[in-house]
């Protein structure tokens, strides 16, 4: 295991505990130092990838996984979020039984970056360092800036760095599970800081529940994958899992989508507080854009074996994300929400790109022109948004009747159509279709 990889994962984790006991003092310093440290480590690793190796026993990672799940379980009981308690309880049971009964061998290199992952990590590190001044500026403007909130924010930030590095470097499914849980804790801490801001819409709790449900399924899939192939490493899934390949791939895809908050729904108003926008933007760029792309790339050996119908539907889902992101960005034109919606739009392109040029002998929905048309429509809406945004630089909000009486979106697409409803129906339909096609592969 590379020394630098370990540094990137463990040093922010150590800082997490330092922040936990610091009572909020020095949070700004910790945020700045951790961001710079992360960038330096990424640069060093990018320029010189083959540095000294450190042999860290995989048992340690298993203990950390179990401790993480137990921590979330205890915290959820403390917060009276019993649905999360149920999911984490099952996760803990699975982890314990998996270790006692099967004792799987983790890949030799538990954490390792290939070239693509180093590139993604570098781009993420650059984005992080660019966002830090805005984050600190907005934090300082936080009116009731209690030390407790600052402490939570600092803990969330350093854990975000750690989970980002871990998700990019993880080579096994259990590794992905662990670092997704860290991402969950990081998001939970940010919610504690900004979730109860006055005027902000309450965050839809159902997303948190669905994320834990997806992680439970993901962990179960990793157990099944090990039973079927004898491996936990993604690169060893070249031959697939037989009849259940499609179903397993669907759960993996859904896990990546849900952990990346890539549901084409209008949940962005959650980030209503302007103070939350920089960290929300950073969180979405890392976990909605870079991480899902990087994680899905790891599973390409598995996706190469899939029935083409599932792939086509996954591409269709990605294209829907492009359109939905662009639509919501235009809907909130001249608003800070637009930027966050644009991230979903770009993430959709990334998801679609992962599945591009995956070969398969069988054909279902193959050569479907619909994804391309939806992507084109999304790109055109994005261009319209950019024009509106540039135009806004030159002018102020309209004072004429034609400018005020109707929404900009209605004026440029003059049809009386409820696009929001169409988007909802479309993503539900695609999800149901993908599930149907995956299940139909089971009975072949």
């Amino acid at each position, binding site marked *: 295991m590379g020394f630098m990889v370990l540094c990137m994962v463990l040093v922010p984790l150590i800082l997490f505990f330092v922040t936990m006991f610091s009572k909020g003092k020095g949070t700004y310093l910790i945020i700045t130092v951790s961001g710079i440290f992360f960038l330096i480590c990424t640069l060093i690793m990018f320029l010189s990838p083959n540095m000294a190796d450190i042999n860290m026993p995989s048992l340690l990672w298993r203990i950390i996984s179990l401790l993480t799940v137990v921590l979330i379980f205890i915290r959820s009981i403390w917060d009276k979020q019993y649905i999360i308690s149920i999911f984490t309880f099952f996760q803990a049971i699975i982890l314990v039984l998996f270790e006692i009964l099967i004792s799987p061998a983790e890949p030799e290199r538990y954490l390792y970056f290939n070239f693509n992952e180093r590139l993604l990590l570098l781009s993420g590190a650059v984005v992080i360092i660019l966002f830090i001044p805005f984050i600190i500026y907005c934090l300082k403007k936080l009116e009731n800036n209690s030390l407790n909130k600052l402490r939570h924010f600092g803990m969330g930030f350093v854990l975000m760095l750690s989970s980002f590095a871990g998700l990019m470097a993880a080579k096994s499914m259990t590794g992905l599970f662990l670092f997704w849980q860290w991402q969950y804790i990081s998001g939970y801490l940010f919610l504690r800081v900004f979730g109860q801001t006055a005027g902000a819409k309450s965050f839809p709790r159902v997303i948190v529940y669905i994320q834990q449900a997806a992680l439970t399924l993901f962990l179960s899939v990793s157990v099944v994958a090990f039973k079927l192939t004898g491996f936990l490493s993604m690169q060893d899934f070249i031959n697939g899992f037989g009849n259940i390949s499609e179903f397993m791939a669907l759960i993996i895809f859904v896990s990546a989508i849900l952990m990346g908050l890539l549901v084409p729904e209008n949940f962005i108003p959650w980030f209503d507080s302007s103070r939350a926008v920089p960290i929300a933007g950073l969180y979405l760029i890392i976990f909605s854009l870079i991480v899902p792309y990087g994680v899905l790339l790891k599973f390409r050996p598995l996706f190469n074996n899939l029935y083409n119908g599932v792939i086509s539907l996954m591409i269709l889902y990605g294209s829907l994300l492009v359109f939905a992101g662009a639509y919501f960005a235009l809907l909130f034109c001249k608003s800070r929400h637009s930027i966050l919606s644009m991230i979903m739009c770009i993430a959709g392109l990334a998801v679609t790109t992962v599945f591009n040029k995956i070969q398969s002998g069988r054909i279902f929905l193959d*050569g*479907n*022109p619909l994804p*391309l*048309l939806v992507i*084109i*429509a999304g*790109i*055109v*809406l994005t*261009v*319209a948004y950019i*024009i*509106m945004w*540039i*135009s*806004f630089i*030159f*002018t*102020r909000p*309209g004072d*004429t009747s*034609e*400018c005020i009486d109707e929404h*900009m979106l209605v*004026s*440029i*697409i*003059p*049809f009386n159509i409820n696009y929001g409803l169409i988007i909802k129906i479309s993503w539900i339909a695609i999800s149901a279709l993908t599930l149907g096609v995956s299940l139909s592969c089971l009975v072949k």
Partner: protein
Amino acid sequence: MLGKIIWFFAVILSVPVLYIAYNFIKSMMPGQSKTYILQPVYRLLKLFEKKDENAGFLAYFFSIGSCLFSLIALYMTVAGFNFLFVISVLSMMDLLVITGAFSSGDFSGKVSAKRGISRFIIWLFTSIVSAASIYQVAGTLKLNEISRLSESNGLIVNLPFTFVSLFIILLMKGNLMHFNFGISGNEQSLLGDALNSPYSGWSLAVIQLAQWTETGVWLKILSNFIPVAKPVSYGVVLFVFLAFLLLDGYISTVEWKKAARLSWGWAGGLAIINFIYLFYY
């Protein structure tokens, strides 16, 4: 190279000549007022002579910028560049006109900008879908290759609706028939006069030149699909466009939103139909 330069100037000159011919034929028609043959060019020259009202640096910047981009698009078209490159440059041209209209900050400027964006997304969507169809059939998006394949293989047989949708873009750009968004500055109503407000005098003349050049670009693009020699195909498209210019005098204008809906239906819809047909057959 010489051929490209000749084509470049031929296309630039052909559009004013077309409007002069239109003006001449129209003046000869019964019930139409008599005008000078060179009226379109004369109007342009008079605009150049006028001093801009309340125009600052931005009005000149946007008008000159749009004209420059239209000339670049024209060169790329006659040189046979990639269709999508030409579309990108034309988008930049439209972007400058729209942003300039917004920058005026007054009523008609904003109205024309909003209509401009509506028209822009329709023609951009149609163009990209058409490009996808063309690539599906020809395997290339280079205009010179498309022209060569049209002559040898008759590409238009597989791309009839794409051709029609591209022609409707030309009608939208020319503010003709039921695809008139009312931003030409020709209409007598307050709203129809929109484009004149942010741009007047010298800057409006430059915008007018840019739009003529843009019309030439679309005529040249369309001519690539006609399966005959280049000059003949360009002449055919020019003639058909003249026919629609004359026909426009007998068609009542529609409210701009209806024009937008019709444009989506005809330009966007036909492009999609051809695209889907190519995928499945």
